[in-house]
């Protein structure tokens, strides 16, 4: 029992209360969830007269005609959608039937993220924060997927998934504090802006190296499965990150080790300036799933209900069958890559305008809600005023706070500081005593 505590302590408290794991029910669940990893299976050899292929590497048949499988001949994987650009449900059977409260929460989360993006983007332009990345155009992928998973599911993101945190109730002040790196930031201002993380919200801290989080999500899914928890992990990544070696590693590991992990690709057409035509030659990312033996689907990322349905079904497969699932959400990066990028240098304004005005996840959901009589111009005005006020309040609060004490530069390298690091902290203290005026100490808490 003592030994299982590490796992337990790291999943959310709610999880614990709900599952009260004991060694015994871990074992029971293990059997139910087919924990076995298949290896060491010896092949029984057939008689010499058997003319079927016996190669261990593939289950297949012989052919006597030479024919290469052409990488481009088959029809591309279709894009699943539930509502059209006008917010009309196309096939009533596919309507998730979410009630007004849920749909309104979806809309409010998307617009809140949009509002935060606008303020923080501007604040970067004014030099008030050092860096920012907006999620313009991709709000539907965040909210649709976040709404479909369990709050206990661990999320491993790339950097453009702030909406998932908002859906999970991550307070706005924590976002602002992170971007400002002030003394209220739980990460002590060590990382660049938008590198959020929250234990409470089961959201692993973002890091800049692309795709590194993908094998993490597979490993975490495996460990949570072993702990007997009926949760999965969700791994977000972009179409560019999917070219990294770690993406290959993660998909293959998750498949061979039966890890309940949802791989969620945001295919927004660009990796900074690189269009997808220079990123890959196959049928996007979704077609790679079957190559790893993984159920895969492609959805309209601007259709929050399509994303919701696909993610919900994927979660059921992942958790019930202990296997990974791949979702490719087609969308468009309406904003610049980041505040360090001017996207007009590599794409046309018209192209951007089309997606912003004609096919936007927020506009589409608004149309749906107006049609249902769940939303109106008045409600929109009131909500926008309310959310803007909240954002400005939190923004100003975060800006006024001091930066954390420079001593936090030295902690958390290890669980306990090494002797050398203690010595280096003393050296810094001594140095600052003597040369204080050359450093911005007034903006920081005391050492």
């Amino acid at each position, binding site marked *: 029992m003592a030994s299982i505590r590490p796992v337990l302590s790291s999943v959310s408290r709610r999880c614990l209360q709900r599952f009260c794991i004991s060694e015994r029910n871990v074992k029971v669940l293990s059997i139910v969830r087919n924990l076995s990893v298949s290896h060491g299976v010896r092949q029984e050899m057939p008689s010499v007269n058997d003319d079927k292929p016996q190669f261990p590497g593939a289950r297949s048949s012989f052919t006597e005609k030479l024919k290469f499988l052409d990488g481009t001949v088959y029809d591309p994987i279709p894009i699943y959608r539930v509502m059209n650009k006008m917010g009309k449900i196309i096939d009533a059977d596919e309507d998730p039937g979410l009630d007004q409260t849920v749909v309104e929460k979806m809309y409010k989360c998307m617009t809140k993220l949009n509002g935060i993006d606008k303020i923080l983007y501007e604040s970067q332009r004014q030099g008030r924060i050092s860096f920012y990345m907006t999620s313009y155009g991709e709000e539907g992928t965040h909210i649709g997927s976040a709404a479909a998973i369990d709050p206990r599911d661990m999320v491993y993101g790339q950097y453009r998934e702030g909406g998932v945190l908002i859906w999970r109730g991550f307070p706005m002040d924590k976002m602002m504090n992170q971007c400002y790196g002030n003394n209220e930031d739980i990460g002590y201002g060590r990382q660049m802006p938008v590198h959020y993380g929250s234990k409470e919200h089961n959201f692993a801290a973002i890091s800049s190296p692309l795709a590194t989080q993908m094998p993490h999500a597979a*490993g975490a899914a495996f460990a949570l499965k072993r702990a007997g928890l009926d949760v999965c992990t969700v791994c977000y990544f972009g179409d560019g990150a999917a070219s990294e070696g770690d993406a290959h590693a993660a998909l293959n590991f998750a498949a061979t080790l039966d890890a309940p992990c949802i791989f969620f690709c945001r295919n927004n057409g660009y990796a900074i300036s690189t269009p997808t035509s220079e990123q890959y030659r196959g049928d996007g990312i979704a077609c790679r799933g079957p190559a790893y033996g993984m159920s895969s689907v492609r959805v309209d990322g601007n259709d929050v209900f399509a994303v919701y349905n696909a993610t919900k079904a994927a979660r059921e497969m992942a958790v019930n069958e202990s296997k990974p699932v791949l979702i490719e959400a087609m969308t468009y990066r309406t904003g610049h890559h980041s505040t360090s990028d001017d996207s007009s240098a590599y794409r046309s304004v018209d192209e951007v305008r089309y997606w912003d005005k004609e096919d936007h996840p927020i506009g589409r959901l608004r149309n749906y809600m107006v049609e249902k009589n769940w939303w109106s111009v008045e409600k929109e005005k009131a909500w926008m005023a309310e959310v803007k006020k909240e954002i400005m309040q939190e923004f100003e609060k975060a800006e006024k706070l001091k930066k954390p004490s420079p001593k936090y530069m030295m902690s958390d390298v*290890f669980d306990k500081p090494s002797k050398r690091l203690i010595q280096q902290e003393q050296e810094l203290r001594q140095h600052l005593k003597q040369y204080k005026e050359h450093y911005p100490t007034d903006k920081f808490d005391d050492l």
Partner: protein
Amino acid sequence: MASLRTTLNKLGKLCSQSWRKSTVLRNPVCQGNLQICRHASAWKFVPDSPPESLGETTKMNLFQSLTNAMDIALGTDSTAVIFGEDVAFGGVFRCTVGLADKYGKDRVFNTPLCEQGIVGFGIGMASVGATAIAEIQFADYIYPAFDQIVNEAAKFRYRCGNIFDVGGLTIRTPWGAVGHGALYHSQCPEAFFGHVPGIKVVIPRSPIQAKGLLLSCIRDKNPCIFFEPKVLYRAAVEQVPVQDYMLPLEQAEVIVEGSDVTLLAWGTQVHVMHEVAQLAQEKLGVSCEVIDLRTIVPWDSETICKSVQKTGRLLVAHEAPITGGFAGEIIATVQAECFLHLEAPIQRVCGYDTPFPHIFEPFYLPDKWRCLEAVKTMINY
């Protein structure tokens, strides 16, 4: 042409014999045919006497003591798993023999052949609180996982203000020269990792050390890389305590006390230093203090400096190339801390700044004769 064929035939026979008897994979210790191998193992393993306080002992070689440590780790922690390439059947060096049968296939399992995946997968497991013991088949093949180790594992705790960590991760990997491993079965990459804040790097010299230090790494709250001197897997045999015990990380160990020169090394090289100390006594009448560093980072400068302040002379030797090797870090620190005590320039005897060669291995390694010469230089300075 005919003579060429004869030569090739002979070579083929020789190869196949030595391969059968001692392939790099199955049996790293050279057993005969290739004379060249003997030079590389021009050192004697010096067994330690097991501490009495740890009770009952049994004879184990290095790979057996590692298996024993992992057996204990799995037995005492139900979240602990072992994975990597070919670990399920027992591992190419036999370190995980029997563990899959004992603990089940979901606790000791093979992964696809992909080092960045192995380490990334382990980080993920550790990030939700599990104990992940990952194996990289040879230290030479750890570089594909360099990004995961340096950018992810090492920085996981720091970057989020300690809300998440991957302290449960341990990466074990065979390390060091083996007689005929050439470029990619011989490397000592510890200095690459010595430059990375956030990970611990540990190298044992013997079965007793290996068991205690590996258990410490597995249970330490920080990601650890545990390099296993593969030439010792079978060659190093001693009485190892059977009970569950741990040895402290970040602590060097003075294994021979002396007064004239401090000899510092880690891994197999500690045994070379042992012989150098004996030779120095016999041939030069010089008393050497032999220290095993054990933990490369964070390293124990106190023990080293205390010794050098006593002896006034320091020799650091490692198999890895000299430029950028970890000896450089140690020497820079010692000269700063012990400047007034030093009676001769600090010496370092290391591998040369070349890739690790196949047939030239006997000339490449920092063997006892090169080390003895360095002692002589210091004494006569």
